């Protein structure tokens, strides 16, 4: 008995150590990328200047560039990345399938389509467009879950219906872009490919508020999420309020993703990639909401830096994450095909 105790305590400590140290390393990378985001631009400022500006000192040129351009861009990337990563992880874990994800099943497409519709057809204001995109995301989730319900709920069917809805919404977006006024197209473009361009501090508060409100809620229900992974029956017999847990987690994840989409546009594949990457690094013993959020932030900030400065032409962040994410989706599809199960 004592030997068994020592053995399992040792194993548990090892899992814990891996989780904590890896989460720490991920946070460190986020910090480094954040500093880089503030340093790099048309002019490169040294760390000392960045620190002085943040402390409130007025440095000619640097203050303007950092406070009005780079800081909002950093915050948008950081919080949107976190929201996409954490929200995606919650979906993937709850539905026990990496494909069951806001990107793949069309929740982000729902947000985009609603926003593009408002811009092109109604020439609506920014606020209306943002609200429409959030409502669009939520409505898409309801539609997908409603259609997937049927006689018995199946995750495979949910994913297939989601992919179908995603295709339909993409068609709607393409159609709207074709009939739209030329001067509306650039505004609408932002809703199709995610970008941190034009981020303003004044527009960021809904995103900041949503992330700060919903992340603790998600973490509270995170333990239940790890039990839901074992299936409905096991979760019920372990005393999880399964319906309540699922509802709260879905609403939190969708709100975070929809508001992030309303702020930066759909940054391709971040919600899809973050969870699996985080799981690989920190292990699967704990609920990986925070690590997935950190990976999401790393992907967005890293991809933005690459998109802005690695090539002769500047690419929006969504193009870069798309290039990274698509091969992973293909890899996953091939693997699932081999396993023969969706």
């Amino acid at each position, binding site marked *: *008995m004592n030997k068994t105790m020592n053995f399992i305590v040792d194993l*548990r400590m090892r899992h814990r150590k891996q989780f904590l140290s890896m989460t720490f390393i991920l946070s460190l990378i986020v910090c480094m990328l954040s500093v880089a985001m503030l340093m790099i631009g048309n002019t490169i400022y040294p760390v000392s200047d960045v620190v002085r500006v943040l402390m409130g000192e007025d440095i000619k040129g640097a203050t303007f560039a950092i406070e009005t351009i780079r800081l909002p861009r950093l915050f948008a990337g950081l919080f949107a990345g976190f929201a996409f990563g954490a929200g995606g992880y919650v979906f993937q874990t709850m539905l026990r399938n990496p494909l069951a994800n806001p990107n793949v099943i069309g929740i982000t497409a729902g947000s985009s389509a609603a926003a593009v519709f408002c811009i092109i057809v109604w020439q609506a204001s920014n606020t209306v467009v943002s609200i429409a995109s959030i409502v669009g995301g939520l409505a898409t989730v309801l539609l997908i879950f409603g259609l997937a319900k049927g006689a018995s709920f199946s995750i495979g069917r949910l994913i297939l219906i989601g992919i179908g809805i995603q295709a339909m919404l993409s068609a709607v977006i393409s159609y709207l872009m074709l009939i739209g006024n030329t001067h509306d197209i650039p505004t609408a473009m932002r809703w199709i490919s995610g970008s941190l361009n034009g981020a303003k501090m004044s527009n960021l508060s809904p995103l900041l508020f949503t992330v700060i409100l919903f992340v603790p809620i998600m973490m509270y229900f995170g333990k239940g999420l790890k039990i839901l992974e074992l299936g409905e029956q096991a979760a019920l017999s372990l005393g999880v309020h399964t319906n309540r847990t699922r509802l709260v987690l879905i609403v939190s994840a969708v709100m975070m993703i929809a508001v992030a989409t309303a702020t930066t546009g759909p940054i391709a594949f971040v919600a899809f990639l973050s969870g699996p990457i985080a799981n690989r690094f920190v292990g699967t013993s704990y609920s990986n909401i925070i690590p997935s959020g950190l990976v999401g932030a790393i992907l967005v900030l890293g991809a933005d830096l690459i998109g802005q400065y690695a090539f002769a032409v500047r690419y929006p962040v969504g193009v870069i994450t798309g290039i990274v994410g698509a091969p992973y989706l293909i890899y996953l599809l091939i693997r699932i095909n081999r396993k023969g199960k969706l």
Partner: protein
Amino acid sequence: MKRTHVYEATHLAAGYENQMIIEDVSLTIPSHQISIIIGANGCGKSTLLKTMARLIKPLAGQITLNGTPIQKIPPKPFAKILGLLPQSPIVPEGITVVDLIGRGRFPHHTFWKGWTTEDDEAVAEAMEIMGVTEFAHRSIDELSGGQRQRVWIAMALAQQTDILFLDEPTTYLDITYQIEILDRLTDLNKKYGTTIVMVLHDINLSARYADHLFALHKGKLVAEGAPSEVITSSLIQQIFDLQCIVVEDPIAKSPAIVPIGKYHQVDSAR
């Protein structure tokens, strides 16, 4: 020693979407004993077990735990008294044995109270009882069917409930592992007085391991009691539509059935 509970169902009816599977079943689960539910495929064994474990809402009737209707007990306190091993639980990818068994501690945790030594002890104890300590560090995907089933039962044991339900814990396992699992469950019952209720397919093993049998036929409870009273050729004829003779199991001295078939009649056997 586990606590004694009065766990009763009265005039229970259950099923799915207006299709009645269980009709008017009244029973009391004998505390500190091993009860086994037997019956033909589709007779409602699993449905009865799941309804009793609160996984399915009854369509009519009532289930009470010490006089309280079970739907009035909050999930976590209920999960500290009654645990259920589902028929086909889902294995999350890459999960290790120790991690999975640890999840059985969920009902004992609150938001403020994290993992304690008590939890470690419960996991260690569950591992020893089911003999899975040696592969505690391995991933579930690497284990054989029999080992896997022992790990799942260990998870239910780590929950440390007074009553344990198991939905076909031996299905798809080789006979060696069937015996091993039933022996370990008997250990558990003898050592701690855990009340065990399970669904089994094999009548002879059921008769051997059960203190109490519940015989179901088309959703109705047709007989219950000690195996020696319940297992008769007329009951087997009724619930399985099978002719057989009942003999004494030479090892366990429990009743055992020997089926009669088209080519194997009583006369031709002589």
